[in-house]
């Protein structure tokens, strides 16, 4: 297992509502827990993944995610079982949409 942490400052979109969980920790899949959290306008993401050594790929996927949504005061926690970048992006969008109900 590998733990990766990301923090993006000065998001523009604040989250509100109850924590939401989307996805399942199954082969090639992941679960994403999204929670509003007072983080001085930042979005923090913690990934625990079974696929070791893909830090650069995760960095790119997370940067794209932040470009799309620019979340503020949001905490995202991921349990991953080897999901591909496309699946990770879709789950992240699904997680945000479960709280905001909308598209970017």
């Amino acid at each position: 297992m590998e733990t990766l942490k990301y923090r993006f400052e000065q998001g523009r979109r604040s989250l509100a509502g109850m924590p939401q969980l989307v996805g399942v920790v199954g082969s090639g899949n992941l679960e994403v827990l999204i929670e509003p959290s007072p983080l001085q306008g930042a979005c923090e993401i913690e990934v625990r993944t079974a696929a070791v050594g893909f830090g650069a790929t995760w960095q790119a996927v997370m940067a794209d995610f932040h470009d799309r949504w620019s979340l503020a005061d949001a905490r995202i926690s991921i349990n991953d079982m080897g999901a591909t970048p496309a699946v990770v992006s879709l789950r992240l969008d699904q997680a945000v949409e479960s709280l905001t109900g909308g598209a970017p």
Partner: protein
Amino acid sequence: MSSYQELTARQRIPAIFDAGSFEEFLPPSERVASPHLAQLDAPVSFDDGVVVGRGKLDGKLVFGAAQEGGFMGGAVGEVHGAKLVGMLRRAIDENAHAVLLLLESGGVRLHEANAGLIAVSEVMRAMLDVRAAGIPVVAVVGGANGCFGGMGIAARCANSVIMSEEGRLAMSGPEVIETANGVEEFDSRDRALVWRTTGGKHRYLLGDCQVLVADESDAFRAAAIDAIAGLRGGEVRLTLEGLLAEQDMLARRMRDAEGLTEPMEVWKQLGVAEPARVPMLEADAFLEMAAQHRATINDGAR
């Protein structure tokens, strides 16, 4: 019309309980995950593969759970089992109208060894405690992973089991039988054989499940409401009389199936005229046919 089988555990809860009524105990944000999997450096899930809580079903206070088959096959670890047991005990404390278990599990999570085994036995005991308190327990089996091992036994500790044809209920799963006894004994890749042996129709004909529905969320919900209404006011506790009647049914089944190795032969023995057609029948046509032939506790000496 939507498939129950294709839903995740978290999607099944709102599909079965009254919309917006379910309150989850120990939600994922509490992060009560498996310490054993973490020690093994294996992926964990924030809910350890089970949703537990209380909600309304047709306006009544019903406690419930949904196992996530996608996470380790719905297998029961220490935390997963403790969540089920805690919910069942609270159902007694709060005098629930009923308990509804949406089961999908391969049984004990072997990574957790004795902790998982003990967890499953505690779930069974807690289910019987709920029944002893006069509260009906209903199990639903309709997930792609079926309900096997210890949870297969737990399902049969419920007052009523509701299945779809696609659901499967048994003790040892197909791969386990093949591994232990050889492919000549059981070919786990023969899907038709697997469903003839463990699927909902076979379980219904043999009297192991009390209700068979099509694989639709609404059908499962309606069947759960009906089952609970039918059980309320009756005897839901284990009684000596009830156990003896069940024992009679099992003995009769043993006699009926003696020497038979193929489920279709067993169905023929039960009086089904065209056993080969059974797997192809839609739920309604199957129920009509099965009504005259299925084994039940109260059908006297066959």
